[in-house]
């Protein structure tokens, strides 16, 4: 049942385009039923998960120890519920966003595929399963960023997102394999109990670093943060869903999930707090610099992801509780704000905060939901965002001055960003927009209403369900039972003072946004150090390298190809022979006079073929060598080979003579130096083959396969010629393949001959 709930999205997704064609208006509402049902199912699992982790296993690749197993505990349920519940509203919203457009079916398909992948990722118990779903989310994200694929810019952004996250995914895979090796199991539920052993293991640091690269790329941490703002090329419901509420939190999920196994070491704390803090500051500053609604939100998301990583890095009970509160609050208000930005964009045709004013008259409901979500983002009571921010500040105060400063500065800048996105476009005198603004349709307003309203509701009233969910999640992250409440009021204390200070500073920043923006512009000089430049240079370098090596290796010159093959043979075979075997083999074999004569004839014919100027002479020499070889087959007990060789050699000579009759004779076109060099290389290759063969004939081998054929040829296949029996009976399928090759060659020859006839 659990696997069915998680994987149902994959089953329903292919039906979406069909459903959309049949019922364009209703399809989004119908499809949203699936995530709603999944949400309901997950809610029923909560009591069991609150008591402890439940693991459900299905065999997948038993030979490799890979199973499709799911881990249900508070943390995975928290994420799963966010994914499925927000997914339902996103699907409904998409129906309004792309109403009447044929591409909607494709969007629904991809959104459902993504939802399935993301659910699989957060519920996976086996590390390999987790990785597979992790990469699936990267791929669906790629397809969704490049959804409007006719714009080159979008395709570039999609590729950038894919390369950064999938590249990090490779590091993650290596890290997970190391962890599996060190812990002796690929099951998360087992590994989580082996924290002591893992942290003491010699591979701890490499394992940690690799996993962190995976988590940091996915969750857009500095220096990999640049792909996330560019991913805003995606349609807005996608930005709200993947690039704010769910997928970018996969890295955070992984860190939270693994903190009982890998956390609470100096390396863990130092790396996570440093990178997280830096990311929070970078995101907050860049958010205030931006003027595009979606980019402001994207950078603000980067700030939030940084804060989450910072909190998980600190790792105390307060910090982890703060992280969970902040995560839930962020998903609610940021999802709502993205959807609002989408409505504004959809209804006015503009996303530029400098040009959008006074929309409250024309879009009152949008303005209401935007205001609620923005207040939550800014951390104003009585909204849920306030409770979350209080917890974050409390953690920071308990940790140290640097962390406190980081958190307060980014909180203040976040207030500015909240004002820019949720307040500024709606107040003041209306200004002209590309499209006359109108209130958005119901389907599009539903999502922001629920998400922003949820933020208000959880802030105002204690919701037992949310408390139970967060408590179960905290127990899972900590590895021991814990209780968590979303209580708003913590009393008058230093935290409240800091909170108020950040809010006031933020309001001042919003009031003087233009000067603030200009002064932050001084930081643009750091742009030369921006990681995106390194990405671009690396990509250019890759293209350059591909170009150079293609020119070098695939230059179209057959001469050079053959030389490459010969030198590879010389180096590999020559090196192996020289280092692993005696230089001179023992030569002891009797030599009969007539055999020596045949050998000499073949040798002379080969040399003559290679050196003669006459084409006919070369063909004749080829024939002589071929008949010589036929004689050797006959002398050494292979009459069938001799017969075949004689027939084939005769046909070859006849065919060559017939064709050569129409071709020009040989002329010397290569220079003398080239001839000598080629002769030297060829002689060297020939000598290597001779050496190889002299050593090879000395090797003892066990003829078990041959023995089977010899023993059973008569009794099983009723044939006395064993070679013949092998070909037409024991290995008859191979011979059938051979006949097919010959038939194809004959068809080709026939076609080419006929083609010429028609041209004439």
């Amino acid at each position: 049942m659990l696997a069915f709930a998680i994987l149902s999205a994959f089953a329903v997704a292919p039906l979406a385009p069909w459903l959309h064609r049949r019922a364009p208006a209703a399809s989004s509402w119908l499809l949203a039923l699936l995530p709603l049902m999944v949400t309901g199912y997950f809610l029923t699992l909560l009591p069991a998960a609150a008591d402890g982790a439940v693991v459900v296993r299905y065999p997948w690749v038993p030979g490799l120890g890979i199973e499709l197993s799911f881990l249900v505990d508070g943390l995975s349920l928290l994420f799963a519920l966010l994914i499925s519940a927000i997914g339902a509203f996103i699907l409904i919203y998409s129906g309004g966003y792309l109403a009447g457009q044929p591409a909607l079916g494709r969007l629904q398909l991809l959104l459902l595929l993504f939802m399935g992948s993301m659910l699989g990722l957060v519920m996976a118990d086996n590390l390999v399963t987790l990785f597979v779903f992790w990469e699936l989310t990267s791929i669906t994200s790629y397809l969704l960023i490049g959804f409007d694929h006719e714009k080159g810019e979008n395709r570039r952004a999609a590729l950038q997102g894919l390369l950064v996250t999938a590249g990090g995914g490779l590091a993650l895979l290596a890290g997970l394999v190391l962890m599996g090796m060190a812990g002796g199991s690929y099951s998360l539920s087992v590994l989580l109990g082996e924290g002591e052993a893992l942290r003491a293991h010699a591979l701890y640091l490499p394992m940690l670093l690799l996993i962190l690269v995976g988590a940091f790329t996915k969750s857009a941490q500095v220096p990999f943060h640049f792909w996330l703002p560019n991913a805003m090329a995606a349609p807005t419901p996608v930005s709200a869903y993947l690039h704010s509420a769910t997928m970018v939190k996969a890295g955070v999920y992984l860190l939270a999930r693994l903190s009982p196994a890998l956390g609470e070491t100096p390396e863990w704390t130092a790396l996570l707090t440093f990178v997280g803090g830096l990311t929070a500051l970078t995101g907050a500053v860049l958010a205030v610099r931006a003027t595009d609604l979606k980019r402001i939100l994207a950078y603000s998301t980067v700030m939030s992801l940084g804060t989450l990583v910072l909190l998980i890095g600190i790792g105390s009970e307060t910090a982890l509780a703060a992280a969970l509160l902040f995560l839930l609050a962020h998903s609610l208000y940021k999802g709502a704000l993205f959807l609002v930005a989408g409505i504004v964009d959809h209804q006015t045709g503009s996303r530029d905060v400098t040009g959008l004013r006074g929309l409250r008259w024309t879009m009152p409901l949008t303005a209401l939901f935007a205001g609620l979500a923005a207040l939550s983002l800014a951390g104003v009571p009585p909204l849920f965002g306030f409770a979350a921010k209080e917890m974050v500040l409390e953690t920071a105060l308990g940790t140290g001055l640097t962390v406190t400063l980081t958190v307060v500065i980014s909180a203040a800048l976040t207030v500015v960003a909240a004002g820019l996105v949720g307040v500024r476009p709606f107040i003041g005198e209306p200004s002209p927009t590309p499209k006359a603004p109108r209130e958005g349709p119901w389907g599009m307003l539903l999502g922001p209403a629920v998400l922003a309203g949820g933020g208000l509701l959880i802030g105002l009233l204690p919701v037992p369900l949310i408390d139970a969910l967060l408590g179960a999640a905290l127990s899972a992250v900590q590895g021991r039972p814990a209780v968590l409440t979303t209580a708003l009021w913590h009393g008058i204390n230093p935290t409240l003072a800091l909170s108020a200070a950040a809010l006031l500073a933020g309001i001042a920043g919003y009031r003087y946004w233009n000067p603030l923006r200009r002064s932050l512009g001084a930081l643009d000089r750091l742009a030369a150090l921006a990681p995106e430049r390194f990405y671009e240079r690396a990509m250019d370098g890759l293209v350059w390298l591909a170009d150079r090596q293609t020119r070098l290796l695939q230059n179209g010159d057959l001469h050079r190809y053959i030389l490459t093959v010969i030198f590879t043979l010389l180096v590999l075979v020559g090196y192996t022979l020289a280092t692993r075997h005696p230089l001179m083999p023992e030569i002891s074999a009797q030599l009969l006079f007539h055999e020596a004569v045949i050998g000499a004839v073949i040798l002379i014919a080969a040399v003559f073929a290679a050196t003669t100027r006459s084409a006919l002479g070369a063909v004749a020499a080829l024939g002589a060598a071929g008949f010589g070889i036929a004689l050797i087959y006959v002398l050494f007990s292979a009459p069938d080979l001799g017969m075949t060789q004689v027939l084939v050699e005769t046909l070859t000579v006849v065919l060559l003579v017939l064709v050569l009759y129409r071709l020009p004779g040989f002329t010397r076109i290569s220079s003398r130096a080239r001839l000598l060099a080629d002769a030297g290389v060829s002689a060297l290759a020939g000598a290597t083959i001779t050496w190889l063969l002299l050593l090879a004939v000395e090797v003892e081998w066990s003829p078990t396969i041959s023995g089977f054929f010899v023993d059973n040829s008569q009794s099983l296949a009723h044939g006395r010629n064993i070679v013949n029996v092998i070909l037409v009976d024991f290995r008859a399928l191979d011979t059938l393949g051979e006949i097919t090759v010959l038939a194809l060659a004959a068809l080709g020859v026939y076609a080419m001959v006929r083609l010429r006839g028609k041209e004439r």
Partner: protein
Amino acid sequence: MEPLLALVIGGLYAAALFMMLRRSIVKLVIGLMLLSNAANLLIFTAAGLTRGVPPLVPEGLTRPDGLSADPLPQALVLTAIVISFGVLAFAVVLIHRAYEAVGTDDLRRLRDTDT
């Protein structure tokens, strides 16, 4: 006989590779034929040579009386001989057609011709 055959096969390989390194497409094909002959002989020799006892089951017995030559390499080489003939027939007609269309048998000039 093995040392002599090793020498002969080395000579065949050298001659074949030298011909394949030439610019004439006809030499390339002849070189290819020599190369496949050399490879067949290489497999045949490496598997061990036996004089005068072909792998046949005499009348009235269920298996050869005493030692006989190994049938397996023979079956492999037999297949290879036939396949290489198919390749040759195709290649010969192909270069003939190419010559008619392009008017040269120089590989260096063939590579840029878009006919």
